[in-house]
Protein backbone atom coordinates (compact mmCIF):
# COMPACT_ATOMS: atom_id res chain seq x y z
CA UNK A 1 0.00 0.00 0.00
CA UNK A 2 1.34 3.41 -0.96
CA UNK A 3 0.65 6.22 1.51
CA UNK A 4 -0.46 9.61 0.28
CA UNK A 5 2.24 12.29 0.14
CA UNK A 6 3.47 14.01 3.25
CA UNK A 7 6.42 16.08 4.34
CA UNK A 8 8.86 14.63 6.83
CA UNK A 9 11.11 16.35 9.33
CA UNK A 10 13.36 14.77 11.93
CA UNK A 11 14.17 17.54 14.43
CA UNK A 12 17.00 17.16 16.90
CA UNK A 13 15.29 18.80 19.88
CA UNK A 14 11.90 18.73 21.57
CA UNK A 15 11.58 22.51 21.24
CA UNK A 16 11.97 22.24 17.50
CA UNK A 17 9.48 19.36 17.32
CA UNK A 18 6.87 21.25 19.34
CA UNK A 19 7.34 24.37 17.20
CA UNK A 20 6.76 22.31 14.04
CA UNK A 21 3.60 20.78 15.49
CA UNK A 22 2.37 24.23 16.51
CA UNK A 23 3.07 25.71 13.09
CA UNK A 24 1.01 22.97 11.43
CA UNK A 25 -1.95 23.23 13.81
CA UNK A 26 -3.49 19.77 13.87
CA UNK A 27 -2.27 18.67 10.46
CA UNK A 28 1.03 17.22 11.68
CA UNK A 29 1.58 13.95 13.53
CA UNK A 30 4.37 12.81 15.83
CA UNK A 31 6.19 9.75 14.50
CA UNK A 32 7.84 7.70 17.25
CA UNK A 33 7.61 3.90 17.00
CA UNK A 34 5.22 4.24 14.08
CA UNK A 35 3.68 0.81 14.61
CA UNK A 36 0.15 2.21 14.80
CA UNK A 37 0.60 5.43 12.83
CA UNK A 38 2.30 3.98 9.75
CA UNK A 39 -0.39 1.30 9.18
CA UNK A 40 -3.04 4.03 9.51
CA UNK A 41 -1.24 6.18 6.95
CA UNK A 42 -0.80 3.21 4.62
CA UNK A 43 -4.50 2.38 4.84
CA UNK A 44 -5.14 6.11 4.29
CA UNK A 45 -7.23 6.27 7.44
CA UNK A 46 -4.86 9.10 8.40
CA UNK A 47 -3.34 11.60 5.99
CA UNK A 48 -1.21 14.09 7.94
CA UNK A 49 0.58 16.66 5.80
CA UNK A 50 3.67 16.51 8.00
CA UNK A 51 5.34 13.80 10.05
CA UNK A 52 7.55 15.03 12.86
CA UNK A 53 9.93 12.14 13.52
CA UNK A 54 11.17 12.40 17.13
CA UNK A 55 13.48 9.38 16.85
CA UNK A 56 16.55 11.58 16.29
CA UNK A 57 16.05 13.54 19.51
CA UNK A 58 18.69 12.38 22.00
CA UNK A 59 18.03 11.44 25.62
CA UNK A 60 14.45 10.17 25.43
CA UNK A 61 14.93 6.38 25.53
CA UNK A 62 15.20 5.98 29.32
CA UNK A 63 13.42 3.65 31.74
CA UNK A 64 14.64 4.64 35.19
CA UNK A 65 13.55 5.02 38.78
CA UNK A 66 14.36 8.36 40.43
CA UNK A 67 12.72 10.72 42.94
CA UNK A 68 10.22 8.09 44.04
CA UNK A 69 8.87 7.35 40.57
CA UNK A 70 9.54 5.26 37.49
CA UNK A 71 10.14 7.46 34.45
CA UNK A 72 9.59 6.06 30.95
CA UNK A 73 10.90 8.36 28.21
CA UNK A 74 9.16 9.05 24.90
CA UNK A 75 11.52 6.79 22.95
CA UNK A 76 11.59 3.83 25.35
CA UNK A 77 10.44 0.82 23.33
CA UNK A 78 8.29 -2.02 24.57
CA UNK A 79 11.38 -4.24 24.21
CA UNK A 80 13.26 -1.88 26.55
CA UNK A 81 10.61 -2.49 29.25
CA UNK A 82 10.98 -6.24 28.75
CA UNK A 83 14.75 -5.99 29.22
CA UNK A 84 14.72 -3.51 32.12
CA UNK A 85 15.99 -4.91 35.43
CA UNK A 86 14.05 -2.36 37.51
CA UNK A 87 10.82 -3.23 35.68
CA UNK A 88 11.42 -6.94 36.16
CA UNK A 89 12.08 -6.54 39.88
CA UNK A 90 9.73 -3.76 40.91
CA UNK A 91 6.98 -3.40 38.28
CA UNK A 92 5.96 -6.90 37.17
CA UNK A 93 2.61 -5.53 35.92
CA UNK A 94 4.57 -3.57 33.30
CA UNK A 95 6.40 -6.71 32.22
CA UNK A 96 3.06 -8.55 31.96
CA UNK A 97 1.77 -5.74 29.76
CA UNK A 98 4.78 -5.22 27.51
CA UNK A 99 4.97 -8.95 26.79
CA UNK A 100 1.48 -9.03 25.27
CA UNK A 101 1.69 -5.86 23.17
CA UNK A 102 1.53 -6.89 19.48
CA UNK A 103 4.47 -9.24 18.77
CA UNK A 104 8.21 -9.24 19.58
CA UNK A 105 9.24 -7.61 16.29
CA UNK A 106 6.72 -4.78 16.66
CA UNK A 107 7.93 -4.35 20.27
CA UNK A 108 11.44 -3.52 19.02
CA UNK A 109 10.01 -0.35 17.49
CA UNK A 110 6.76 0.46 19.34
CA UNK A 111 7.07 2.97 22.18
CA UNK A 112 5.31 2.85 25.54
CA UNK A 113 4.41 6.55 25.40
CA UNK A 114 2.98 6.07 21.91
CA UNK A 115 0.78 3.26 23.22
CA UNK A 116 -0.92 5.91 25.40
CA UNK A 117 -0.78 8.91 23.05
CA UNK A 118 -2.47 6.97 20.24
CA UNK A 119 -5.69 6.78 22.29
CA UNK A 120 -6.69 3.33 21.06
CA UNK A 121 -8.92 1.50 23.58
CA UNK A 122 -7.43 -1.76 22.29
CA UNK A 123 -3.94 -0.81 23.44
CA UNK A 124 -2.70 -2.47 26.61
CA UNK A 125 -0.80 0.20 28.53
CA UNK A 126 -3.73 2.58 29.13
CA UNK A 127 -5.38 0.20 31.61
CA UNK A 128 -2.09 -0.66 33.26
CA UNK A 129 -1.11 2.99 33.66
CA UNK A 130 -4.56 3.77 35.11
CA UNK A 131 -4.17 0.94 37.63
CA UNK A 132 -0.76 2.37 38.58
CA UNK A 133 -2.12 5.94 38.85
CA UNK A 134 0.51 7.09 36.36
CA UNK A 135 0.67 10.50 34.70
CA UNK A 136 2.06 11.61 31.36
CA UNK A 137 4.14 14.74 30.93
CA UNK A 138 3.00 16.63 27.84
CA UNK A 139 5.17 19.33 26.34
CA UNK A 140 3.78 22.03 24.07
CA UNK A 141 4.54 25.58 22.98
CA UNK A 142 3.43 26.91 26.36
CA UNK A 143 5.53 24.54 28.44
CA UNK A 144 5.05 21.19 30.15
CA UNK A 145 2.12 19.87 32.12
CA UNK A 146 1.32 16.60 33.85
CA UNK A 147 -1.89 14.81 32.87
CA UNK A 148 -3.09 11.88 35.03
CA UNK A 149 -3.62 8.90 32.72
CA UNK A 150 -7.11 8.58 34.22
CA UNK A 151 -7.90 11.96 32.61
CA UNK A 152 -6.01 11.41 29.35
CA UNK A 153 -8.62 9.56 27.31
CA UNK A 154 -11.53 11.63 26.10
CA UNK A 155 -13.04 9.20 23.60
CA UNK A 156 -12.23 6.77 20.84
CA UNK A 157 -8.74 7.72 19.53
CA UNK A 158 -9.18 11.08 21.27
CA UNK A 159 -6.96 12.28 24.10
CA UNK A 160 -6.62 15.41 26.20
CA UNK A 161 -3.39 16.25 24.36
CA UNK A 162 -3.34 19.51 22.41
CA UNK A 163 -2.24 19.34 18.77
CA UNK A 164 1.17 20.87 19.60
CA UNK A 165 1.83 18.59 22.57
CA UNK A 166 4.20 15.63 22.71
CA UNK A 167 4.15 13.05 25.50
CA UNK A 168 7.73 13.33 26.72
CA UNK A 169 7.47 10.76 29.50
CA UNK A 170 5.27 8.59 31.68
CA UNK A 171 5.72 8.96 35.45
CA UNK A 172 4.63 6.08 37.68
CA UNK A 173 4.67 6.59 41.46
CA UNK A 174 6.96 3.95 43.00
CA UNK A 175 4.78 1.37 44.73
CA UNK A 176 4.98 1.34 48.55
CA UNK A 177 5.94 -1.88 50.41
CA UNK A 178 3.47 -4.78 50.12
CA UNK A 179 2.37 -3.73 46.63
CA UNK A 180 1.83 -5.93 43.62
CA UNK A 181 0.18 -5.79 40.26
CA UNK A 182 -0.68 -7.92 37.26
CA UNK A 183 -2.11 -7.59 33.76
CA UNK A 184 -4.20 -10.36 32.25
CA UNK A 185 -5.27 -10.29 28.59
CA UNK A 186 -7.38 -12.64 26.52
CA UNK A 187 -6.27 -12.59 22.89
CA UNK A 188 -7.20 -14.87 20.00
CA UNK A 189 -3.62 -15.00 18.75
CA UNK A 190 -0.29 -13.24 19.21
CA UNK A 191 -0.54 -9.71 17.89
CA UNK A 192 -4.31 -9.42 18.20
CA UNK A 193 -5.97 -6.71 20.22
CA UNK A 194 -7.48 -7.87 23.49
CA UNK A 195 -10.87 -9.55 23.48
CA UNK A 196 -10.73 -8.23 27.04
CA UNK A 197 -7.93 -7.27 29.41
CA UNK A 198 -7.66 -6.29 33.08
CA UNK A 199 -4.88 -4.49 34.97
CA UNK A 200 -4.86 -4.66 38.77
CA UNK A 201 -2.43 -3.06 41.21
CA UNK A 202 -2.91 -3.43 44.98
CA UNK A 203 -1.18 -2.30 48.15
CA UNK A 204 -1.77 -4.26 51.36
CA UNK A 205 -1.52 -3.18 54.99
CA UNK A 206 0.49 -5.33 57.41
CA UNK A 207 -2.69 -7.14 58.45
CA UNK A 208 -3.31 -8.14 54.80
CA UNK A 209 -6.22 -5.77 54.20
CA UNK A 210 -6.27 -3.63 51.10
CA UNK A 211 -4.93 -0.07 51.44
CA UNK A 212 -5.22 0.79 47.75
CA UNK A 213 -6.50 -0.89 44.62
CA UNK A 214 -6.22 0.25 41.02
CA UNK A 215 -8.25 -1.73 38.48
CA UNK A 216 -8.74 -0.84 34.82
CA UNK A 217 -10.08 -2.55 31.71
CA UNK A 218 -8.81 -2.90 28.13
CA UNK A 219 -10.91 -2.85 24.94
CA UNK A 220 -14.37 -3.00 26.48
CA UNK A 221 -15.37 0.60 25.81
CA UNK A 222 -14.47 3.67 23.77
CA UNK A 223 -11.50 4.19 26.10
CA UNK A 224 -9.75 2.15 28.76
CA UNK A 225 -12.04 2.14 31.79
CA UNK A 226 -11.14 2.57 35.47
CA UNK A 227 -13.32 0.14 37.46
CA UNK A 228 -13.80 2.58 40.32
CA UNK A 229 -16.62 0.71 42.09
CA UNK A 230 -14.48 -2.40 42.24
CA UNK A 231 -11.52 -0.35 43.51
CA UNK A 232 -13.60 1.22 46.29
CA UNK A 233 -15.13 -2.12 47.26
CA UNK A 234 -11.72 -3.66 48.02
CA UNK A 235 -10.58 -0.95 50.44
CA UNK A 236 -10.04 -2.15 54.05
CA UNK A 237 -10.94 -5.74 53.11
CA UNK A 238 -8.69 -8.80 53.09
CA UNK A 239 -8.18 -9.95 49.50
CA UNK A 240 -9.68 -13.41 49.94
CA UNK A 241 -11.36 -15.40 47.19
CA UNK A 242 -14.87 -14.24 48.08
CA UNK A 243 -13.92 -10.54 48.14
CA UNK A 244 -12.01 -10.84 44.88
CA UNK A 245 -14.97 -12.59 43.23
CA UNK A 246 -17.27 -9.74 44.24
CA UNK A 247 -14.81 -7.09 43.03
CA UNK A 248 -14.46 -8.95 39.72
CA UNK A 249 -18.24 -8.84 39.35
CA UNK A 250 -18.15 -5.06 39.90
CA UNK A 251 -15.36 -4.72 37.34
CA UNK A 252 -17.49 -6.62 34.81
CA UNK A 253 -20.35 -4.19 35.44
CA UNK A 254 -18.03 -1.28 34.58
CA UNK A 255 -17.34 -2.73 31.12
CA UNK A 256 -19.22 -1.29 28.16
CA UNK A 257 -18.26 -3.58 25.27
CA UNK A 258 -19.63 -3.72 21.75
CA UNK A 259 -20.08 -6.80 19.61
CA UNK A 260 -17.35 -7.57 17.08
CA UNK A 261 -15.44 -10.57 15.71
CA UNK A 262 -13.99 -11.14 19.15
CA UNK A 263 -17.31 -11.77 20.83
CA UNK A 264 -20.64 -10.55 22.12
CA UNK A 265 -20.98 -7.93 24.85
CA UNK A 266 -22.13 -10.57 27.35
CA UNK A 267 -19.14 -12.76 26.58
CA UNK A 268 -16.67 -9.91 26.88
CA UNK A 269 -18.21 -8.73 30.14
CA UNK A 270 -17.90 -12.21 31.57
CA UNK A 271 -14.29 -12.43 30.40
CA UNK A 272 -13.63 -9.19 32.29
CA UNK A 273 -15.01 -10.88 35.41
CA UNK A 274 -12.70 -13.89 34.93
CA UNK A 275 -9.63 -11.82 34.06
CA UNK A 276 -10.24 -9.36 36.91
CA UNK A 277 -10.28 -12.22 39.40
CA UNK A 278 -7.08 -13.68 37.92
CA UNK A 279 -5.34 -10.30 37.86
CA UNK A 280 -6.36 -9.55 41.46
CA UNK A 281 -5.21 -12.95 42.73
CA UNK A 282 -1.86 -12.52 40.97
CA UNK A 283 -1.54 -8.94 42.26
CA UNK A 284 -2.29 -10.08 45.81
CA UNK A 285 0.29 -12.90 45.62
CA UNK A 286 2.89 -10.49 44.30
CA UNK A 287 2.04 -7.95 47.01
CA UNK A 288 2.71 -10.65 49.60
CA UNK A 289 5.91 -11.47 47.71
CA UNK A 290 4.99 -15.11 47.97
CA UNK A 291 4.49 -16.23 44.44
CA UNK A 292 7.43 -16.94 42.19
CA UNK A 293 5.19 -18.12 39.36
CA UNK A 294 3.24 -14.87 39.41
CA UNK A 295 6.46 -12.90 39.38
CA UNK A 296 7.53 -14.82 36.30
CA UNK A 297 4.28 -13.82 34.63
CA UNK A 298 2.72 -17.27 34.52
CA UNK A 299 -0.34 -16.74 36.78
Amino acid at each position, binding site marked *: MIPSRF*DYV*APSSLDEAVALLGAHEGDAKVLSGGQSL*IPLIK*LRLAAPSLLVDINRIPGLAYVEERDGALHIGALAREADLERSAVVRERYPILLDTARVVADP*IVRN*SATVCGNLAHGDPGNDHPATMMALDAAVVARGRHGSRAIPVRELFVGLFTTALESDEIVTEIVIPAPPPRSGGAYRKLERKVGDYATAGVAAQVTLLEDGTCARAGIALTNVGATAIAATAAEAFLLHKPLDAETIAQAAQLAAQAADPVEDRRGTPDYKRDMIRVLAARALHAAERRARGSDAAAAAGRD
Partner: protein
Amino acid sequence: MSMHTITVTVNGQPHTMEVESRLLLVHLIRDTLRLTGTHIGCDTTHCGACTVLLDERPVKSCTLFAVQADGRAVRTVEGLERDGQLHPVQRGFKEEHGLQCGFCTPGMMMTATALLERNTSPTEEEIRSAISGNLCRCTGYVNIVKAIQHAAAEMRGATAVPSLATPPAERTGATA
Protein backbone atom coordinates in the same frame (compact mmCIF):
# COMPACT_ATOMS: atom_id res chain seq x y z
CA MET B 1 10.70 18.53 2.20
CA SER B 2 9.12 15.47 0.67
CA MET B 3 12.35 14.36 -1.09
CA HIS B 4 15.35 13.37 1.00
CA THR B 5 18.90 12.29 0.29
CA ILE B 6 19.69 9.35 2.51
CA THR B 7 22.54 6.91 3.01
CA VAL B 8 21.61 3.42 4.13
CA THR B 9 24.10 0.60 4.57
CA VAL B 10 22.54 -2.60 3.26
CA ASN B 11 24.40 -5.87 3.88
CA GLY B 12 27.57 -3.88 4.53
CA GLN B 13 27.30 -1.79 1.37
CA PRO B 14 26.47 1.93 1.73
CA HIS B 15 23.89 3.27 -0.73
CA THR B 16 23.19 6.99 -1.14
CA MET B 17 19.97 7.88 -2.92
CA GLU B 18 17.14 10.33 -3.12
CA VAL B 19 13.82 9.05 -1.76
CA GLU B 20 10.31 10.34 -1.23
CA SER B 21 9.19 10.61 2.40
CA ARG B 22 6.44 8.10 1.79
CA LEU B 23 8.72 5.37 0.38
CA LEU B 24 8.60 2.33 2.65
CA LEU B 25 11.84 0.60 3.55
CA VAL B 26 10.62 -2.65 2.00
CA HIS B 27 10.09 -0.91 -1.33
CA LEU B 28 13.56 0.63 -1.18
CA ILE B 29 14.98 -2.84 -0.58
CA ARG B 30 12.94 -4.64 -3.25
CA ASP B 31 12.31 -2.04 -5.96
CA THR B 32 15.26 0.35 -5.70
CA LEU B 33 18.00 -2.09 -4.68
CA ARG B 34 16.36 -5.12 -6.35
CA LEU B 35 16.96 -7.31 -3.31
CA THR B 36 13.81 -9.37 -3.70
CA GLY B 37 14.58 -11.92 -1.00
CA THR B 38 12.64 -9.71 1.43
CA HIS B 39 8.98 -10.49 0.83
CA ILE B 40 5.82 -8.45 1.23
CA GLY B 41 3.08 -10.53 2.81
CA CYS B 42 0.21 -8.88 4.62
CA ASP B 43 1.48 -5.29 4.25
CA THR B 44 -0.26 -4.54 7.59
CA THR B 45 2.42 -5.30 10.22
CA HIS B 46 1.11 -8.76 11.06
CA CYS B 47 2.90 -11.47 9.13
CA GLY B 48 6.61 -10.68 9.45
CA ALA B 49 7.51 -11.81 5.89
CA CYS B 50 9.25 -8.44 5.36
CA THR B 51 11.39 -8.71 8.52
CA VAL B 52 14.90 -7.29 8.17
CA LEU B 53 17.47 -6.31 10.78
CA LEU B 54 17.84 -2.58 11.41
CA ASP B 55 20.99 -2.00 13.45
CA GLU B 56 20.75 -5.73 14.26
CA ARG B 57 17.19 -5.61 15.66
CA PRO B 58 14.35 -7.22 13.69
CA VAL B 59 11.82 -4.77 12.28
CA LYS B 60 8.96 -5.14 9.83
CA SER B 61 10.22 -3.22 6.81
CA CYS B 62 6.66 -2.55 5.57
CA THR B 63 6.15 -0.44 8.71
CA LEU B 64 9.11 1.89 8.47
CA PHE B 65 9.79 4.69 6.02
CA ALA B 66 13.08 4.45 4.13
CA VAL B 67 13.99 7.95 5.28
CA GLN B 68 13.94 6.68 8.88
CA ALA B 69 16.78 4.30 8.01
CA ASP B 70 19.09 7.17 7.02
CA GLY B 71 22.52 6.58 8.53
CA ARG B 72 21.61 3.12 9.76
CA ALA B 73 22.54 -0.45 8.86
CA VAL B 74 20.06 -2.86 7.29
CA ARG B 75 20.63 -6.59 6.94
CA THR B 76 18.45 -8.66 4.63
CA VAL B 77 18.32 -12.37 3.86
CA GLU B 78 20.83 -11.78 1.04
CA GLY B 79 23.32 -10.70 3.71
CA LEU B 80 23.25 -14.03 5.56
CA GLU B 81 25.48 -15.96 3.16
CA ARG B 82 29.17 -15.05 3.44
CA ASP B 83 31.84 -15.97 0.87
CA GLY B 84 29.67 -18.67 -0.63
CA GLN B 85 29.05 -20.22 2.79
CA LEU B 86 25.46 -20.46 4.03
CA HIS B 87 24.75 -18.92 7.45
CA PRO B 88 24.12 -21.59 10.13
CA VAL B 89 20.47 -20.48 10.18
CA GLN B 90 20.19 -21.14 6.43
CA ARG B 91 21.84 -24.53 6.88
CA GLY B 92 19.44 -25.31 9.72
CA PHE B 93 16.39 -24.54 7.56
CA LYS B 94 17.82 -26.70 4.76
CA GLU B 95 18.76 -29.63 6.97
CA GLU B 96 15.59 -29.67 9.06
CA HIS B 97 13.12 -28.98 6.27
CA GLY B 98 12.21 -25.67 7.93
CA LEU B 99 10.19 -24.47 4.96
CA GLN B 100 7.59 -25.62 2.51
CA CYS B 101 6.42 -22.80 0.22
CA GLY B 102 9.25 -20.56 1.40
CA PHE B 103 7.32 -17.31 1.50
CA CYS B 104 7.81 -16.64 5.23
CA THR B 105 11.35 -18.04 5.24
CA PRO B 106 13.46 -14.90 4.72
CA GLY B 107 11.69 -13.05 7.53
CA MET B 108 11.73 -16.13 9.73
CA MET B 109 15.48 -16.54 9.21
CA MET B 110 16.21 -12.88 9.97
CA THR B 111 14.30 -13.12 13.25
CA ALA B 112 16.09 -16.37 14.06
CA THR B 113 19.45 -14.80 13.25
CA ALA B 114 18.82 -11.88 15.62
CA LEU B 115 17.76 -14.31 18.36
CA LEU B 116 20.80 -16.57 17.98
CA GLU B 117 23.29 -13.74 17.72
CA ARG B 118 22.07 -12.69 21.18
CA ASN B 119 21.62 -16.15 22.66
CA THR B 120 22.96 -19.36 21.16
CA SER B 121 21.19 -21.54 23.74
CA PRO B 122 17.53 -20.52 23.53
CA THR B 123 14.89 -22.83 25.00
CA GLU B 124 12.11 -24.05 22.73
CA GLU B 125 9.79 -21.59 24.50
CA GLU B 126 12.20 -18.72 23.78
CA ILE B 127 12.39 -19.72 20.12
CA ARG B 128 8.62 -19.95 19.79
CA SER B 129 8.19 -16.59 21.51
CA ALA B 130 10.86 -14.93 19.33
CA ILE B 131 9.19 -16.05 16.08
CA SER B 132 5.64 -15.32 17.25
CA GLY B 133 5.57 -12.23 15.01
CA ASN B 134 6.41 -14.29 11.92
CA LEU B 135 3.51 -16.24 10.48
CA CYS B 136 3.98 -19.52 8.61
CA ARG B 137 0.93 -21.14 7.02
CA CYS B 138 2.62 -24.37 5.87
CA THR B 139 4.82 -26.00 8.44
CA GLY B 140 2.97 -25.80 11.73
CA TYR B 141 6.29 -24.35 13.01
CA VAL B 142 7.61 -27.73 14.19
CA ASN B 143 10.45 -27.94 11.69
CA ILE B 144 11.13 -24.21 11.94
CA VAL B 145 11.83 -24.65 15.65
CA LYS B 146 14.07 -27.64 14.84
CA ALA B 147 15.86 -25.61 12.17
CA ILE B 148 16.62 -22.85 14.67
CA GLN B 149 17.77 -25.43 17.24
CA HIS B 150 20.01 -26.96 14.57
CA ALA B 151 21.51 -23.54 13.83
CA ALA B 152 21.92 -22.82 17.53
CA ALA B 153 23.84 -26.03 18.03
CA GLU B 154 26.12 -25.20 15.13
CA MET B 155 26.69 -21.68 16.42
CA ARG B 156 27.58 -23.07 19.85
CA GLY B 157 30.08 -25.30 18.11
CA ALA B 158 28.21 -28.39 19.22
CA THR B 159 27.18 -31.33 17.09
CA ALA B 160 23.72 -30.83 15.62
CA VAL B 161 20.92 -32.78 17.25
CA PRO B 162 19.64 -35.75 15.23
CA SER B 163 17.08 -34.59 12.74
CA LEU B 164 13.51 -35.78 12.46
CA ALA B 165 13.83 -35.00 8.76
CA THR B 166 16.32 -37.85 8.62
CA PRO B 167 14.63 -41.24 8.19
CA PRO B 168 14.62 -43.24 11.44
CA ALA B 169 16.69 -45.98 9.84
CA GLU B 170 19.54 -43.57 9.22
CA ARG B 171 19.21 -42.10 12.66
CA THR B 172 19.59 -45.45 14.39
CA GLY B 173 22.15 -46.67 11.90
CA ALA B 174 20.01 -49.73 11.10
CA THR B 175 19.53 -50.86 7.55
CA ALA B 176 16.06 -50.83 6.10
